[in-house]
């Protein structure tokens, strides 16, 4: 159905470019009016806003390319990415100058650097390796990153004594590079699986599991009477509210939990249908599952809208203390990112479902993708090693011990071991192709857990990041 729709109205190359160009111009004009009012052109906020506008334009064009395969889009998309990257570089430089240290000290600053790296890598992957569709994936991630930055507390905070070390900067820079390389290897492994004629159902199962995990994690804060607990926010000091050291205070938004539960069911339906199709060996269930994905995207969008509306501000009762306390989107960046990520993953699946042949035509061949995946991991692994070593050296100077088995350290070691396992299987056992690709995907899942999961689920010494 939807596939037929796209084919009935083949968007010509120019229409989308002109539309995107006009929207960029419009948004920049709005921003210009704002600049006239405040009289400060090159503030960090404006640079970041410009980066957002350009990344969004690039994202739209890359998506347009992914859907139609029109080469003209890529040219303008990379132009927009360049513009975004320049604005982003300006923001990084501004931050660095203002803070007097490289921007790695808070979640906001790390995101700033991460988005910059992502945009730079996109351009490298596109120009150097000819992986043109990569922007379809990276640009939306960059957009989410910039939007999160707009929400997070962004004033320059002075560095507390433990963070005043060159080794910290070395450690974090290496971490960013290593994680970016891991992300790239993940994307390449996924593309390999597409080129390797892995059935579309596999991606259906993968995206469904991913989305189900997201909503299950969100529902971990489901309270009785259908409320959803989010972290309380102190709008004056722009920080989360703590009731004890490392213990955050939660407020419960009424009824939002029910909505999340409903969406959880909706995203579980495609997975259930997939399992049913597998068990009963009936392909008809898969068609229903694909329709269910479409429905679940709509519901997920609804959940996102309601979440933003209710968690943006407002006073809610808390389970930890008497009375009502405020919250803000800034207190729940990871729920927001998870919601957007879920929608995005499902949209990517729909893209694959509808335009698989085009995608296969646009991607490099399977062998090349397999090799590039391996090469990316060959870059990621030494970086991971050095990152851990620099972290240990810093810990040794700051706390008198190079290894404490704190959760972040342990998980970094686990990441390292997983990639070490990959390399051993590939070099000594000759693992190629799919098995290697699955391993690369597993490796990135562990990286993501080390980066986000450990910070928010397990706490330890790494309270800064």
């Amino acid at each position, binding site marked *: 159905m939807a596939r037929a729709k796209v084919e009935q109205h083949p968007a010509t190359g120019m229409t989308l470019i002109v539309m995107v160009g006009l929207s960029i111009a419009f948004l920049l004009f709005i921003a210009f009016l704002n600049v006239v009012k405040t009289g400060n052109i090159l503030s960090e906020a404006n640079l970041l806003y410009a980066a957002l506008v350009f990344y969004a334009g690039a994202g739209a064009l890359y998506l347009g390319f992914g859907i139609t395969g029109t080469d003209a889009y890529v040219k303008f998309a990379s132009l927009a990415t360049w513009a975004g990257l320049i604005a982003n570089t300006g923001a990084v430089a501004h931050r660095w100058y203002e803070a007097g240290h490289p921007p790695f000290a808070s979640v906001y600053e790390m995101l700033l650097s991460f988005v910059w790296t992502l945009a730079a890598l996109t351009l490298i992957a596109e120009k150097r390796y000819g992986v043109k569709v990569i922007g379809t994936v990276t640009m939306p991630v960059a957009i989410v990153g910039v939007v999160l930055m707009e929400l997070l507390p962004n004033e320059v905070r002075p560095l507390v004594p433990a963070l005043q070390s060159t080794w910290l900067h070395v450690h974090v820079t290496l971490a960013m590079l290593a994680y970016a390389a891991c992300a790239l290897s993940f994307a390449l492994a996924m593309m390999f699986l597409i080129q390797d004629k892995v059935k579309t159902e596999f991606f259906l199962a993968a995206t469904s599991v991913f989305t189900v995990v997201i909503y299950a994690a969100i529902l971990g804060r489901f309270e009785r009477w259908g409320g959803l607990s989010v972290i309380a926010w102190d709008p004056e000091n722009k920080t989360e509210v703590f009731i004890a050291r490392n213990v955050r205070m939660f407020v419960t938004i009424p009824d939002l939990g029910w909505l999340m539960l409903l969406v959880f069911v909706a995203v579980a339906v495609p997975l259930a249908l997939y399992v049913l199709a597998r068990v009963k060996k009936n392909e008809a269930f898969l068609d229903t599952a694909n329709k269910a994905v479409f429905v679940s995207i709509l519901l997920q969008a609804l959940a996102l809208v309601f979440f933003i509306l209710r968690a943006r501000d407002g006073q809610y009762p808390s389970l930890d203390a008497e009375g009502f306390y405020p919250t803000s989107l800034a207190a729940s960046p990871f729920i927001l990112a998870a919601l957007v990520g879920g929608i995005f993953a499902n949209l990517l699946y729909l893209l694959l479902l509808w335009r698989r042949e085009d995608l296969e035509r646009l991607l490099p061949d399977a062998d090349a993708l397999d090799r590039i995946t391996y090469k990316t991991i060959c870059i990621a692994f030494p970086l991971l090693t050095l990152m851990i070593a620099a972290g240990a050296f810093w810990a040794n100077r700051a706390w*008198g011990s190079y290894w404490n088995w704190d959760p972040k350290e342990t998980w970094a070691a686990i990441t390292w071991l997983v990639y070490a396992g990959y390399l051993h299987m590939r070099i000594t056992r000759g693992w190629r192709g799919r098995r290697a690709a699955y391993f690369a995907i597993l490796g990135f899942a562990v990286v993501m857990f080390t980066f986000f999961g450990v910070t928010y689920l*397990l706490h330890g010494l790494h309270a800064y990041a």
Partner: protein
Amino acid sequence: MSLSLSSVVRKTWQTLSSVKTGVILIILVVIFSAAGTVILQRPMTDPDDMQRAYSPAMLRFLDATGLTDIFHAHWFVALMLLVSLSIIAASVERFPNAWRYFARPYKSPDDGFRRVLPIQAQIPITNEEAALSTAERVLRKNRLKSEHIVRTNSFSLFSEKHRMSEMAVYIVHASLLLIFLGGIVDALWGWRGFVTLTPGSASNQIEMSNGANRALPFSIRCDGTGEETYTDGTPKKWWSKLAVVENGREVFRKEIVVNDPLAYRGVRFYQASYGRTGKLEQLLLNVVPKDGKTAAREIALGMNQTVELDADTSVQLAEFIPDFVVEDGHVYARSTDISNPAVHLIVSSKKTNKSVNVWFPAIEGIAENAASPYTFTPKDLKTGLFTGLQVSHEPGQWSVWAGVVLMAIGLTFVFYVVHIRIWVVPVKDIHSGNLVLWIGGSANRNRDAFEQTFKKLAEQLRSELKTQPAAEAEKPAASMAGN
């Protein structure tokens, strides 16, 4: 089947050295480390929190199996030792072969080798010697030095670079063992403790993390400590001036800050905490006589210090309570934080031998401030500072850092340095019987890139051979065409 000792040893060795065992051990380490980040761990977690989190039976089970302190449990240490043994066994098992390969490079390929080598090319030639010298020149142009291999019935060329790359994986494994060794040394002989010093005091007693005390052969003296803050009040810097005193002599001196410790004889002192002791050093008071006979003046009092106010009256600082609470007409200290301080002064008269209790603040029912012949106003309160030093002795850390450096070198070789070998042999083609120059190449990794390099090299050689002995080459080329 007899289970002789040697066969058991051989079996164990084979199992230990297999890649499969290695991967299984890695998976076990991963599972248990992950468990160690999910299950609450003993020394770090408060015992009360542990009891709140798990049921008593569960907690007993976790404690008995060592799951509440996984990373120091005996079986985890045993697992790490097994990993080390597996690395050693795997390396020892494979090393002799690799060493032979490394020490005695295969220089003149035989027929069988030439047939199966995947990367090769053949170029028709007429003159063996001329062709070989051309090949040598072309190789040199590509920055490859070549060696003349003379056998009884043949001449050939052998060229290679970065042979070291074959050994790289052993370097990486050895570096891992060095890191483990450092960890084991520190686990056995290393220690961690804490010492709290106030300015002017010295100590050689370190309070260990297990509660015991350790005496150092030297003592550490604090000559001052302090804090600098940013304008918004967040701490910017904590510093302590430390001196090492050995046999009564000062031998070393350093101002330490966070991230820059003092090290002396393998013992390192880190700035870990900083604060106020809750003990009073000096109290400044404004004193005004109630009868107005003498002028107002300012006095400074230390703990238990007495100051004469006039010929008859004296005042003593009797008590300082940093955080006071009143219960049943008595004053108690609630904590040592200076959050709610109270001061107790005793004003006594020699003549009448009477004393009056003056309190700040004036606590109802206890304070007799009105009966005092002087009015006191507290001006300033100086409390003591302390610096908390983390002390550690890690004799194994140098092995760890050496391992890290070695690993960086090893990984560079493993991933980025390719061992390339090229053989050039003039042979008779089996089918046609014509003389050809056989060139073969191999690379231990990144083969697709090497294949491109090799193709280019063969192309270069082909064109060089064609242009150079043009006159002579014409005839055989024609005859080739005839075939």
